[in-house]
C-alpha cells in the first residue's frame, strides 16, 4: 500500500521536468524532511486512512451494523457447526472410553473361578479395569432392569452365567480384537462379547459432519468475499469523484486502495467479534437443554463454549477475509476509475 513516491524516481522525474539535478554527494537541505519525518508521515497517512474508514462506517451505523451482522452470521454458521461436532466428538470419546468387553463364563464356573479370572485379566497390560459379576448379581440386575422379576423367580435354576466386565486402556479396533482373542482362550470362558459397531458408526457420522462443515465453510467464505466485495464496490461508487481527483493529482493505485482495505478489514473485525458473541450466546443457550438431556441418561456432559483461541482465530480470519474481499473489489474496479 505504498503511496509515497520512490525518492529516486521522483528526483528523476523532477529533473526531467525542470528541477535542479542532485549532486553526486547530496547534502540534505535544512527544510527537506528527514527519513524519520517521512516514516512518521507514512505512519500518519495509514492512521488517517484508518480513522477516515472508521468515520465513514460510523456515519452509517445501521447500514454498517447490518453488513457486519450478515457477515457474522455467515461466519458463525460453519464455526458453530464445527464447535457442535467437536462437542459430539468429545461425547463420542467419553463413550468410547466407557466401551467394555463382556467375558461370559461357562455355567459350571464357580465364584472362586470367576474371581481368579478377574485377577488374571486385571493384570493384563492393556486392561484398565476388570469387574466380576456373579450369576446371582447378573440375575438380580436382569430382574431389576427387565421387569420380568416374577417370571425369572419361577425358573427352576438361574440361566445366567457369571461374567467379567473388562475396560480396555485404549479403544483401537485391532488391539481390542487381540484382547478379545486372548480372553477367549482363557479357561472357563464361554463367550467374549465386543460391540464397537456403534462407535464406528458414530465416527463415520462425525467424519461426514466434518466434511459437510468444511464444504459449507468454503461456500460461505466465497459468499463472504462477495458480500464484502459488493459493499466495498458501493463505497467505491460513492467516492468515485474523490478517487478521480486523487488519481489526477498523482495518487497511486496503492494510495487509492488503502482506505478501502482498512474498511474491508474493519468490516471483518466487526463481523468476527459479532460472530464470536453470537456463538458464545447460542452455545450457552443450548447448553441448558443439553445438560438436562444428558442428565436423563445419567451423564454430566455439558457443551464446551467457544475456546479463546478459536474465537481469536475467528476474528483474525474475518479480518483477513474482509481485507481480501476489499482488495479483490478494488482491484476489479480500480481500472474503471480512470479520471475523466
Amino acid at each position, binding site marked *: 500500500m505504498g503511496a*509515497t*513516491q*520512490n525518492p529516486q524516481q521522483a528526483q528523476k522525474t523532477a529533473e*526531467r521536468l525542470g528541477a535542479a539535478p542532485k549532486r553526486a554527494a547530496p547534502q540534505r537541505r535544512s527544510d527537506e524532511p528527514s527519513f524519520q519525518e517521512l516514516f512518521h508521515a507514512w505512519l500518519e497517512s495509514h492512521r488517517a486512512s484508518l480513522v477516515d474508514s472508521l468515520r465513514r462506517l460510523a456515519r452509517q451505523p445501521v447500514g454498517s451494523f447490518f453488513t457486519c451482522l450478515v457477515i457474522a452470521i455467515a461466519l458463525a454458521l460453519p464455526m458453530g457447526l464445527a464447535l457442535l461436532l467437536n462437542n459430539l466428538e468429545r461425547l463420542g470419546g467419553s463413550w468410547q472410553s466407557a466401551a467394555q468387553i463382556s467375558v461370559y463364563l461357562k455355567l459350571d464356573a464357580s465364584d472362586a473361578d470367576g474371581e481368579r479370572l478377574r485377577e488374571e485379566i486385571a493384570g493384563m497390560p492393556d486392561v484398565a479395569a476388570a469387574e466380576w459379576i456373579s450369576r446371582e448379581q447378573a440375575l438380580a440386575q436382569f430382574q431389576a432392569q427387565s421387569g420380568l422379576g416374577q417370571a425369572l423367580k419361577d425358573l427352576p435354576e438361574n440361566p445366567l452365567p457369571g461374567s467379567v466386565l473388562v475396560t480396555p486402556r485404549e479403544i483401537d479396533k485391532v488391539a481390542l480384537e487381540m484382547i478379545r482373542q486372548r480372553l477367549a482362550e482363557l479357561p472357563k470362558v464361554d463367550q467374549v462379547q465386543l460391540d464397537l459397531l456403534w462407535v464406528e458408526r458414530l465416527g463415520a457420522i462425525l467424519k461426514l459432519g466434518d466434511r459437510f462443515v468444511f464444504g459449507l465453510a468454503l461456500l460461505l467464505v466465497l459468499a463472504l468475499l462477495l458480500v464484502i466485495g459488493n459493499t466495498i464496490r458501493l463505497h467505491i461508487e460513492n467516492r468515485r469523484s*474523490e478517487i478521480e481527483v486523487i488519481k489526477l493529482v*498523482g495518487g497511486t493505485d496503492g494510495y487509492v486502495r488503502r482506505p478501502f482495505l482498512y474498511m474491508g478489514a474493519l468490516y471483518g473485525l466487526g463481523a468476527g467479534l459479532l460472530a464470536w458473541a453470537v456463538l458464545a450466546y447460542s452455545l450457552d443457550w443450548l447448553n441448558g437443554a443439553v445438560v438436562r438431556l444428558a442428565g436423563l441418561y445419567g451423564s454430566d456432559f455439558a457443551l464446551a463454549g467457544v475456546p479463546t483461541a478459536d474465537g481469536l482465530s475467528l476474528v483474525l480470519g474475518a479480518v483477513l477475509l474482509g481485507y481480501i474481499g476489499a482488495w479483490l473489489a478494488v482491484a476489479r474496479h480500480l481500472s474503471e476509475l480512470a479520471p475523466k
Partner: protein
Amino acid sequence: MIRFEQVGKRYPNGHVGLHELSFRVRRGEFLFVTGHSGAGKSTLLRLLLAMERPTSGKLLLAGQDLAQITTAQIPFLRRQIGVVFQNHQLLFDRSVFDNVALPLQILGLPKAEIAKRVGAALERVSLADKAEQYPADLSTGQQQRVGIARAVVHRPALLLADEPTGNLDPRLAAEIMGVFEDINRLGTTVLIASHDLALIARMRHRMLTLQRGRLIGDGEAA
C-alpha cells in the same frame, strides 16, 4: 519542456481528436490554447496528463515519451503537474485546508511541512483565512482559487488549466489570470486552455489556435 511531433489522436469510434499536431513549449513559458468546442483543447490536456495516449507521433514531456509511459509511472508524472479544472473538482466533504493538502498527503510529506506549504499556497490565492471552511461555503471565484492553490501547492513544473475562468465574471476571471501570472513568474510553465479570446488578448502571451484538431495558429495574442 513539451514537444508535440506530428501527434495524432484517433478514437476507436473513428473520431479524430488531433491531427498531426507539432509545437514546442519552453520551460517557464506562459501560453494559451484556444479554439471552439471540439477543437481539441481538452484532448491536448488529456494527452499531457497521460489520461489518454497519442495514436501517432511523438509527445515528449521533459524528455519522457508519453506514448511509452507505463501505467505505474503515470502517478509519478502527474505529481510534477498541477491541474486546474473549470468545475474546480474540489472534494466537498473536506475543508479547504484538506483539499489543498491532498497532493502533499499523496507525496507523503510530514504534517508540519504540509501545514507550511498549504498556508503559503492559500496565502498566494488570498484565501488564508478560509482554510477551515468547506468549499460549499465559498463563492465560485473562491472555489476556483482553492483549485489553483491545490494545483500549485506541490510546486509543479507544469501547470495545466482547462477553461479555468469559464464560470467566472470578467472581473473574477482577470483576477484568476493574475494568479496564474504570479505562479508563472516563479518559474512554473503555465498552459491554459480557454476560448475567452477577449481575456487572452489582454494578457499578451503566446497562443496556439486549434480548429477541428489541427493547429491553425501559433503566436502572441493580439
